[in-house]
């Protein structure tokens, strides 16, 4: 570009781009810092800490981290997290689909009332329920099992049911009617006709349920006290507690490992996430 021909508009746009670029670098700096620290040697992490390029690249933090603690390899925690998360996602998708169909496509006495009840529970801070739920699960011997983390998701989640209901309401009722003429019952209509059409919203539900369960720290903290039961979130917290003579490089390495599935899903399914938040205001 020649100096004389550069219009004010171009300059403006250039400045804007530089500004946004600089700001986005600032935003991701903490994560890059953690990533680079996980690749530095232990004695380098907190010396000239802001530098992003390690003077010596090493994967020893990862090797060390995967050894885990209390005789449990980090693979155990990853396995636990995947068991809990995948079961919860399955439970949520299954229960929310069925319940949402009931609310959206079957007209029955009391439907409006119970739908209202469900919407109310969305506003309820879960903390009010934590203590009695804990006592209940404690009494029936579910502490130190995955059950309190998994089983409730098979009973539907108000927010996700609402999402699927909204989606179902957007699908034409003629679909149901023609299926009914062909002799389909409600089960047939849902599973043979509507289910394929529900795939996009069910993907959105799965992604967010995955994120919420994967990141969940409160429930594992309450219910899982044995080291071999810990999920990744809980294991990270335990590894960062000073009692283990914390090697921060190792903790950062495992933190990066714990974030990997979150990033992979984001990269693969970004469209569903952005749409999900934009249209429903979901907290990611």
């Amino acid at each position, binding site marked *: 570009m020649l100096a004389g021909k550069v219009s004010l508009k171009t300059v403006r746009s250039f400045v804007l781009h530089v500004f946004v*670029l600089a700001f986005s670098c600032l*935003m991701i700096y903490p994560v890059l810092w953690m990533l680079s620290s996980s690749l530095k040697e232990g004695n380098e992490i907190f010396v000239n800490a802001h530098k992003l390029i390690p003077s010596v690249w090493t994967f020893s933090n990862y090797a060390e981290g995967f050894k885990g603690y209390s005789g449990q390899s980090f693979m155990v925690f990853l396995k636990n997290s995947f068991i809990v998360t995948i079961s919860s996602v399955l439970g949520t998708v299954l229960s929310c689909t069925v319940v949402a169909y009931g609310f959206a496509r079957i007209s029955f006495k009391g439907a409006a009332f119970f739908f209202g009840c469900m919407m109310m529970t969305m506003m309820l801070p879960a903390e009010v329920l*934590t*203590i009695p739920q804990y006592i209940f699960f404690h009494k029936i011997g579910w502490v130190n099992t995955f059950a309190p983390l998994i089983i409730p998701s*098979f009973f539907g989640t*108000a927010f996700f049911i609402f999402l699927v209901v909204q989606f179902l309401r957007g699908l034409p009722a003629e679909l149901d009617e023609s299926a009914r003429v062909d002799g389909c019952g409600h089960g047939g209509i849902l599973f043979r006709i509507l289910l394929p059409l529900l795939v996009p919203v069910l993907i959105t539900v799965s992604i967010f349920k995955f994120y919420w369960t994967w990141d969940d720290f409160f429930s594992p903290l309450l219910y899982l006290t044995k080291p071999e039961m810990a999920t990744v979130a809980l294991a*990270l917290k335990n590894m960062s507690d000073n009692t283990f003579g914390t090697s921060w490089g190792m903790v950062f390495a495992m*933190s990066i490992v714990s974030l990997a599935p979150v990033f992979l899903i984001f990269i693969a399914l970004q469209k569903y996430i952005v749409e999900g938040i934009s249209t429903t205001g979901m907290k990611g």
Partner: protein
Amino acid sequence: MQGTNKAKLRKYETLQGYLFIAPWLIGFLLFTMAPMFASLYMAFTRYDILSSPQWIGFGNFKEMFTRDVRYWSAWKATLTFVFVAVPIRLLFALGVAMLLNTKLRMLSLFRATFYMPTLIGGSVAVAIMWRQLFGSNGAFNSVLSSLFGVSEKVSWITHPSTAMWSLILLAVWQFGSAMLIFLAGLKQVPTSLYEAADIDGAGWWRKFHKITLPLLSPVLFFNLIMGIINGFKVFTEGLIVTNGGPFDKTLFYVLYVYEKSFRYYEMGYGSAMAWVLLLTTAVFTLIIFTTSRSWVFYESGRK
């Protein structure tokens, strides 16, 4: 004949309806209603899970409001957090959304970058990272010393006057989902309005004040409610980054509920605290809803 058939059919439909919503209905009774009532009852008892609950009337509430100093620290920390972090986060979200709404290249890349902190922000990994980032030997001090020659090494996390700010910064950093909602809202604003304003010679601020802000107010309203409700529930950050310290400066409400109920096993006291939180959240939501009439603009004309 036909009438009874119809009635039968309706009955069958109702049965089917309840069958379909049964999973939620059972969960609602078992995991929501029953615990709610149990928690309400426990709020009036002393209960340590091992022995049976002991009725003490308003004892927990009296203790809470008149004698427990830490209880008030918890309120102070939570309210400070909510009323500083939420508005700043919304401001950032709106500002960045407006930047991204101009003709920007690589929009989806920038959008992804700005959303990324929100994506991972609630995780233990990020809380651990934040603690080290702003620790005395962390990158933040390192940047300060290399750029401005500041040699003093403050631990921002454990210093009484900065600990709260480090958590507020962590919350503001996660403006991504509010930004996405604003961005979707901005896309709905018809460009013809701006063109008309341009013809009238309106400046940037006037356009923002008279067009963008009113049309965006429902979205702003939604983000505000969600921000406040979620702000009251802050827990993980408070536990891992600052552990409630120093001197209870970041002892958030839910963190204190957790401590009382699951470290000291004062489940009755914890339940009473949880109920006060529930009622407070409800009151705040109600206030925002009722005042919104005067500042939220709906296009249908209802003001």
